[in-house]
């Protein structure tokens, strides 16, 4: 995988089983977000292949690709919600990928009782049931994050990907949220992949850790078997490409 000729990920081989929970750890710029975006078919690799449920993504037409995407919930680092609509609308929009255009218009503008109940139940599960009819931009950062999570869950996904869910909230809330996501994924049998740079949190909540450094997998092992030395090496600045200050003209 390369951006403008610079490899962002290279020599990467990763297999995730259904229902598994794993954390992607590594310093900023290691390629965690790029890897997640490859996994939900938002990016196509410049070389190599991505398979989801045994299907090679590069062989799928647009319709089949959308069907794959619809089965993968993604919580973006910047949340990517529409701020000036109600929470309910943001949650309901998670299911657009499974609906035709007119059905989507109908369910966002005139949601059925069953749809509202389902959205409300999910919001309740993520802890902000009372915010259903509030405008999204009136919520705090932590609450908005839960809206983004609810939208991904309302999608009815088989897998859930979270990109740096702890970067936008304080440590206590971050822990709550990651534990909540892990619990929900266990309940529903979802495959869970979370990129995270808080190594303590990753160790506490995930049975498998994948360390990424400079676009390569540094280690991939059950949490108990990842050594302190491996972790220290993952975050050491040595050997990483340093950003030189641009010479002023």
């Amino acid at each position, binding site marked *: 995988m390369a951006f403008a000729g610079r490899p962002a990920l290279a020599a990467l081989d990763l297999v995730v089983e259904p229902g598994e929970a794993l954390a992607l750890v590594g310093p900023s710029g290691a390629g965690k977000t790029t890897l997640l975006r490859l996994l939900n078919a938002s990016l196509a690799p410049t070389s190599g292949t991505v398979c989801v449920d045994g299907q090679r993504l590069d062989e799928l037409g647009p319709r089949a690709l959308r069907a794959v995407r619809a089965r993968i919930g993604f919580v973006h680092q910047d949340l*990517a919600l529409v701020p000036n609509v109600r929470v309910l609308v943001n949650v309901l*929009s998670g299911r657009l990928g499974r609906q035709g255009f007119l059905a989507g218009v109908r369910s966002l503008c005139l949601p059925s009782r069953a749809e509202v109940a389902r959205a409300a139940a999910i919001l309740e599960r993520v802890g902000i049931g009372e915010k259903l009819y509030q405008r999204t931009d009136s919520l705090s950062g932590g609450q908005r994050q839960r809206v983004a999570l609810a939208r991904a869950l309302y999608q009815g996904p088989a897998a859930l990907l979270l990109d740096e869910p702890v970067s936008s909230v304080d440590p206590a809330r971050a822990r709550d949220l990651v534990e909540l996501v892990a619990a929900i994924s266990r309940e529903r049998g979802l495959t869970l992949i979370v990129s995270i740079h808080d190594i303590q949190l990753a160790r506490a909540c995930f049975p498998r850790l994948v360390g990424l450094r400079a676009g390569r997998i540094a280690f991939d092992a059950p949490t108990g078997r990842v050594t302190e030395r491996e972790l220290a090496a993952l975050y050491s600045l040595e050997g990483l490409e340093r950003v030189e200050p641009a010479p002023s003209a």
Partner: protein
Amino acid sequence: MSNPRPPPDPARRPFPVTPRVSVAASLLVAGLAAWLALDAPLARLVPESGGLAVAREFFAAALRPALDYEAPVPAGTPHILAQALAAARRTVVFATAAMSVALVLGIALGFLSTSAWWSGELSGGAGPLRRLCARTLGPTVWAAARLVIVVMRSVHELLWAVLFLAAFGLNTAGAVAAIAIPYGGTLAKIFSEMVEEAPRDAAWALRGAGATPLQVFVFGLVPRAAPDMAAYSFYRFECAVRSAAVLGFFGFPTLGYAIAQAFENLHYREVWTYLYALVALVLAIEAWSGALRRRFVA
């Protein structure tokens, strides 16, 4: 090519000619050049004695707008204030009819002249249909829509009115179309720009959840631009009221017609009565749109 030069001594650095400075300088030069080319010294704005008397009379009338006609009128003519109110109402009706057509035109053409729904950035996937859309169909429709919009906008509403007047005579539908066409074009241009510039994060998220390009466009992009689009539409409605008033000078029964008649009769105090009605109308619309904006956008 050359050896790396040492950074210049800040104390000795010449005045930096950044792009910003050169743009500001050329604007200044263009402004001065235009004044010189027009040979329009400000001194000419001071009227000669005859004009001065007229101007004095006209502006003095501003302090005493007419509360009754300045000359005898045929029996049965409604009171001047009722006349002003009726003309204001007709002005609003013209503007409303024109804006309702302009909004439909603006939304339809604005959508067609947006690249977001076909450019591939929001679609992903690479089927043959998608490629046809992104490479041929999309750009063709986009270019055609842009061309139509430019033609609609480049002719001012007064010129459209002259055209329609020549073609259809004093026709209400012609007056509405004269405003609706350039306004529809302007709305289309601004709407499409607002949608193109709207933040795309939510759109990408919907795309990532399997939504079609059209769904992404309608539910991911348009809502982000909607408050600006609404605010701009209110502003254009205000402009439409002014345009409708001015169309009165061609004989349509809006405030402009009353103003033109009073002016021809040199009834300056009546002119001011109607002008104040126009000002009040614009202020009322502004208050109304401001209240709506506070309610929905803030």
